[in-house]
């Protein structure tokens, strides 16, 4: 028993040491491929330069002396063809300890001779070092690489990954970057510290992975609570420590508000698991504790998690200032995370120290409002989130990147300035107004990337000090002509008969937690302003502290031929009851300047209609991604909008002169005669029977139809189900990549059908490399159509037969690729006639149909996009001319297998017991078939009240002068006297002593030292005893003897 104890305990003794060393090894192995967190990589190659050698001398000698030495050495060896490369630099006049010698064809002998010379230390080969900078994908982090990449379990809230910046990457030479400064001094927090503003008295809650009790960087941890049921409060991951450090560290890597009271809520387990219910209880506790600022460096795509979303609103309503990270899913658009995308929350994006948007920062509009509406602007502001230094778990500092870092920067900054302003000036609305209206706009990024701009702490402080309750709008002007900031509005002008252009404005109401929009009025500026028609829609109640105001712009019929700029302004009156109990009603009228460019109506063949209405997506149901290999992110959650994940495609179409309009209503509400083609890309929903009839008529009247479908197979659907830990239930996809059975219903009127097999593979089409990422195939096609095949692998078979789809590319099965029909071009007509030989001028009146089996190649972020194919398809669809690239690839008519069963396959059937009707806009929720078709909604335009006004300035953006840090004064609140400060580290720092909260720093090294001391002590005692004991014994013996 005793012996086993010994072994066990001695293992324990060495454990800390092992931990240290293994940690070192791990850090070295960490292969993020990133030397900088924006994933700029320095590629580093060295080559030996032939015949050149560096001779290093043992001392510093003038040039002539060195030349003499070399000369002596080489002549003694009988070598003559050598020369010293002259260095023409300012140091040439001074003694040096090396020379570069060119030895043309002398080999070892010369080197040995030089080496033997007494004044020469060594001879080495000259090397050429090439460094190149390239961007690497963020996914390239190795297995042990970037910390916490992605959300766990695909959905649900995840910690926003912090990426580790490598401090010591290459063992050889590397470019040294400037050492990251204290983030606090970059944002000039030390100016506020020197005024005595240090975050004192502000309760900051950190919802994260916990924090160690005695971390040396923190002095004011007021409370730590655990909500996970794990028996610990400490942080095992480092995420919570880092976040808390950026907010309130008072040593080494400084935080913003060192004297703020920290309330640590541990809501993530060591395995990064978290549940909505934990958050709800923890949030309730935060309300009861009357938290001032709450940081959530977390997020997920599920904005339809109503209990969570409602609870965040409830917190805001209770005056808790919510700050959250916008997400690390950039640079794709449509990747905003909840809760940062909520209008009451301050959503923070990340930039680097070079003031460029960090690649990882999520961006794009919010997607709650689709398909009828348009997303609001998010993030609200951006700040440094790349390579920021903060506290690490073991007591030191480390550099990390991620919006997880940017969020606490803002939370800390808020805590800091909150402690310097009067309490009544602090509401979620006022703080958001302060940050947004003083933010510095970055040149380049658009408003869906940078929001209002970069955080300006000092100006925000100034703003908040002199704050008067007010309401503001975000964005605070709408200039549909301003590129890049007003992307995508500036990319496509307005014209008569187009689908309305919608701006989603957020009202931030600082008057009270509850308010109303009383009136919205439109004041076009004469003479041309009256051509623009504006209609508005807004939240019934502005709660909590905020609401939305949607303005849709259309051009009046009188403006059908107008070409020019239109100006005007919208006045919004906000009404709120005073919170002080005076029973007074406060009013605020806000002016929103508007500018738009109007062009004459484009010709029909240039106008395309993008079907947004039939696109369903996560959250809500499980709608799988179009690429089955995307196992790490299996949900289709980027909204499939031309301004989110189909942004690149939209840009390409605009470059080619097409005007793309978004259809957010059923097809029956659209005047299809205005459009050249309807784009059905990746539709998930069913179709109303009325829509099919409308479509039939429209195509007969000349509308072309372009379909980019995706995979669908009922048994595969059951196969890709997964158990979702966050909802504790099985998730079975509601459709495949797209709803092929519904598409088949639609296409059946043209004798076109798509099959149920799933194919994948790389091939070449018309000279373009293509990748077919999990797509369907053409099952049957009329004989007179043009059909194009490609050699593809049966991915569905591979998955069902057990081979993991992720490993499909690693272990290619021996099965031969099939020639799969994937693209069909068809001249639709009432009766089947062969029009394939017709010339352009004999193009029939009815529209054409183009069907392709895969839509992932049109999405952003794909390696091999097929925008060219879309353009080629449009060329055919609109002009009726088969592009040569496709003509060559087409299967010759005589080789065509007749009609159906081009390859053996079945028609896909709708999955039995599917729950699509729960999420569908077409099917009725009780599953009894399609619902009655919704009435077409036509917004009532605001009555225009024209005014005479001078043309506005070139930019409508209100000018905001950044505050000079020297000009700001100390806070005028009692109890915060400015105090002289002297503190190690950068700048001034808090000086107040808090006896009860002083903690002794403990770290692993300290423990090791303590241990060493104990060991020494015991050893000494033992030795002493040994000697003394012997002596005593000897004495006894002597005394006995005597």
């Amino acid at each position, binding site marked *: 028993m005793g012996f086993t104890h*010994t072994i066990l*305990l*001695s293992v*324990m*003794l060495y454990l800390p*040491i092992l931990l240290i*060393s293994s940690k070192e090894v791990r850090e070295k192995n960490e292969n993020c491929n990133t030397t900088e967190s924006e994933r700029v990589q320095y590629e580093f190659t060295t080559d030996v330069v032939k015949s050149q050698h560096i001779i290093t001398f043992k001392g510093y000698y003038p040039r002539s002396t060195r030349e003499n030495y070399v000369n002596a050495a080489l002549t003694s060896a009988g070598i003559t063809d050598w020369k010293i490369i002259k260095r023409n630099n300012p140091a040439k006049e001074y003694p040096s300890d090396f020379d570069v010698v060119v030895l043309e064809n002398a080999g070892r002998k010369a080197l040995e001779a030089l080496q033997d010379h007494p004044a020469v230390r060594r001879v080495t080969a000259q090397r050429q070092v090439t460094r190149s900078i390239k961007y690497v994908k963020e996914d390239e982090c190795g297995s042990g690489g970037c910390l916490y990449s992605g959300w766990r379990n695909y959905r*649900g809230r995840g910690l926003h990954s912090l990426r580790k910046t490598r401090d010591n990457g290459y063992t050889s030479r590397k470019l040294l970057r400037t050492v990251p400064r204290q983030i606090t001094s970059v944002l000039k927090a030390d100016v506020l510290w020197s005024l005595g503003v240090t975050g004192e008295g502000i309760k900051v809650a950190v919802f994260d992975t916990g924090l160690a*009790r005695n971390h040396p960087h923190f002095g004011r*941890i*007021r*409370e*730590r*609570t*655990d909500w996970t049921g794990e*028996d*610990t*409060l400490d942080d095992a991951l480092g995420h919570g420590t880092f976040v808390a450090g950026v907010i309130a560290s008072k040593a080494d890597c400084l935080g913003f508000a060192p004297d703020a009271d920290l309330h640590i809520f541990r809501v993530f387990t060591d395995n990064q698991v978290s*549940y*909505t*219910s934990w958050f*709800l*209880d923890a949030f*309730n*506790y935060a*309300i*009861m504790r009357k938290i001032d600022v709450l940081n959530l460096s977390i997020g997920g795509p*599920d904005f*339809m*998690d*109503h*209990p*969570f979303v409602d*609870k965040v609103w*409830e917190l805001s*309503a*209770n005056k808790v200032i919510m700050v959250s990270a916008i997400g690390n899913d950039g640079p794709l658009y449509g990747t905003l995370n909840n809760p940062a995308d909520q209008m009451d929350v301050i959503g923070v994006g990340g930039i680097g120290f070079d003031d460029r948007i960090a690649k990882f920062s999520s961006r794009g509009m919010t997607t709650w409002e689709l398909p009828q509406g348009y997303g609001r602007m998010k993030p609200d502001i951006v700040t440094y989130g790349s390579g920021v230094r903060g506290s690490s778990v073991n007591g030191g500092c480390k550099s990390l990147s991620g919006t997880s870092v940017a969020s606490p920067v803002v939370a800390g900054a808020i805590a800091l300035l909150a402690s310097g302003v009067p309490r009544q000036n602090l509401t979620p609305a006022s703080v958001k107004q302060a940050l947004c209206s003083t933010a510095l706009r970055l040149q380049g990024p658009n408003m869906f990337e940078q929001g209002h701009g970069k955080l300006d702490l000092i100006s925000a402080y100034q703003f908040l000090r002199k704050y008067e309750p007010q309401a503001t709008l975000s964005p605070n002007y709408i200039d549909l002509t301003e590129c890049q900031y007003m992307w995508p509005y500036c990319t496509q002008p307005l014209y008569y008969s187009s689908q309305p252009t919608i701006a989603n404005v957020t009202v931030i109401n600082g008057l009270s*937690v*509850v308010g109303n929009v009383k009136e919205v009025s439109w004041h076009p500026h004469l003479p041309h302003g009256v051509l623009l028609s504006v209609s508005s829609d807004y939240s019934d*109640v502005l*709660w*909590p502290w905020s609401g939305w105001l949607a303005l849709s712009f259309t051009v009046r019929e009188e403006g059908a031929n107008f070409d020019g700029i239109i100006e005007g302004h919208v006045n919004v009156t906000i009404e709120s*009851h005073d919170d*002080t*109990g*005076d*029973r007074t009603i406060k009013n605020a009228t806000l002016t929103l300047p508007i500018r738009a460019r109007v062009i004459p109506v484009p010709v029909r063949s240039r106008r395309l209609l993008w079907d947004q209405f039939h696109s369903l997506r996560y959250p809500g149901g499980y709608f799988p991604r179009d690429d089955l290999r995307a196992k790490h992110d299996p949900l289709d959650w980027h909204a499939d909008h031309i301004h989110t994940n189909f942004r690149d495609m939209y840009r390409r179409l605009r470059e080619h002169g097409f005007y793309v309009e978004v259809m957010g209503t059923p097809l029956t509400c659209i005047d299809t005669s205005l459009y050249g083609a309807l784009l059905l890309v990746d539709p998930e929903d069913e179709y109303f029977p009325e829509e099919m009839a409308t479509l039939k008529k429209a195509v007969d009247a000349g509308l072309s139809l372009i379909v980019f479908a995706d995979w669908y197979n009922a048994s595969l659907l059951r196969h890709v189900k997964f158990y979702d830990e*966050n*909802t*504790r*239930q099985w998730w079975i996809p509601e459709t495949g990549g797209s709803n092929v059975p519904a598409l088949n219903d639609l296409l059946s009127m043209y004798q076109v059908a798509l099959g149920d097999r799933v194919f994948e593979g790389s091939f070449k089409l018309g000279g373009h490399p293509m990748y077919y990422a999990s797509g369907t195939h053409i099952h049957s096609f009329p004989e007179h159509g043009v059909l194009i095949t490609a050699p593809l692998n049966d991915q569905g078979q591979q998955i069902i037969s057990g081979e993991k789809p992720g490993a499909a590319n690693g272990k290619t099965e021996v099965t031969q690729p099939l020639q799969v029909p994937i693209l069909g071009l068809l001249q639709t007509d009432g009766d089947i006639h062969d029009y394939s030989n017709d010339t352009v001028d004999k193009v029939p009146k009815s529209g054409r149909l183009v069907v392709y089996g895969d839509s992932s190649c049109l999405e952003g972020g794909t390696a091999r996009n097929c925008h060219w194919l879309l353009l080629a398809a449009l060329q055919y669809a609109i002009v009726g001319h088969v592009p040569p690239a496709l003509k060559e690839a087409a299967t010759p008519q005589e080789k065509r297998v007749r009609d159906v069963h081009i390859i053996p396959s079945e028609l896909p059937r709708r999955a039995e017991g599917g729950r699509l009707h729960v999420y569908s806009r077409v099917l009725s929720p009780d599953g009894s078939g399609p619902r009655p078709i919704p009435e077409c909604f036509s917004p009532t335009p605001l009555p225009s009240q024209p005014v005479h006004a001078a043309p506005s300035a070139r930019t409508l953006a209100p000018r905001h002068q950044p505050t000079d840090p020297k000009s700001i004064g100390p806070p005028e609140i009692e109890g915060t006297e400015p105090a002289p400060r002297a503190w190690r580290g950068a700048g001034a720092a808090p000086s107040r002593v808090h006896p009860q909260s002083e903690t002794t720093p403990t770290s692993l090294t300290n423990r090791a030292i303590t*241990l*060493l001391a*104990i060991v020494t002590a*015991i*050893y*000494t005692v*033992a*030795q*002493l005893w040994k000697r003394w004991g012997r002596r005593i014994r000897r004495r006894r013996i002597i005394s006995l003897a005597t």
Partner: protein
Amino acid sequence: MNMFWENVTFDLLRYIKTMCIIWSPCFANYGLLFHKKSSHLIFRMWYAALIRFIRRRLVLGIIFASSLTYCIVSFLKEGNHRDVTYQDISIERKPFVWRTLQEHNDSNDHVICRNSVQGKNFLVDDRGYVCQRKDVTKNGCCDPEADFTERYSCESCSKSSCCVEYEHCVSCCLDPGKRHMLEIVLSKLSTEKSILFRSLTDDYELCLTKCRTSSYSVLHENSYKDPTHKHCFGDEPPGSHSGNKM
């Protein structure tokens, strides 16, 4: 005596040297720095010395003793706050107080009410009055004379003590007639380890907290068990009774 101190210093020196070797795997570079020349020979010598040293009974004893000390120390440290892992830095806790009806009724002019700050349409004060936001007086109380002000209103509540409006839930919960039920609720809650309910100080706080949506309200972690009657003060979680009006 002199002899003894010499011995001790010698032993200490030897000990330090040996420790250097024990730790040398951690400081590999450090070690190399010292033994650059003829390192092989020295290494073997030291290795032999090390083995001999470790085999000594005394050294084994020391390792055991120090491990034991470390173990005890760390156990003591951990053990100190083992029982309060939910919350380690205690905030001064007041005992729970059931306010009497008289306290509710305290119609002193200087009375200052707490109210449920958050409401979209209504507010409820700590006397149990629900009123519209505009009818809140300067001291935070609902104006009892206002048209729509009601006391202990269960207007939107169902039989299972679940309400549509949060404010009705709180007001209904504050009804002195419900005290018996709340006592049961509270006793049940306090047996749980919930810090949330352990830090309550009176019935108003209990009702404010109990009526909020919480982990008891969610189904599948992303939806409500009952999306309409989601604010409950009773014993049962929402959704267990369907909404008969009270």
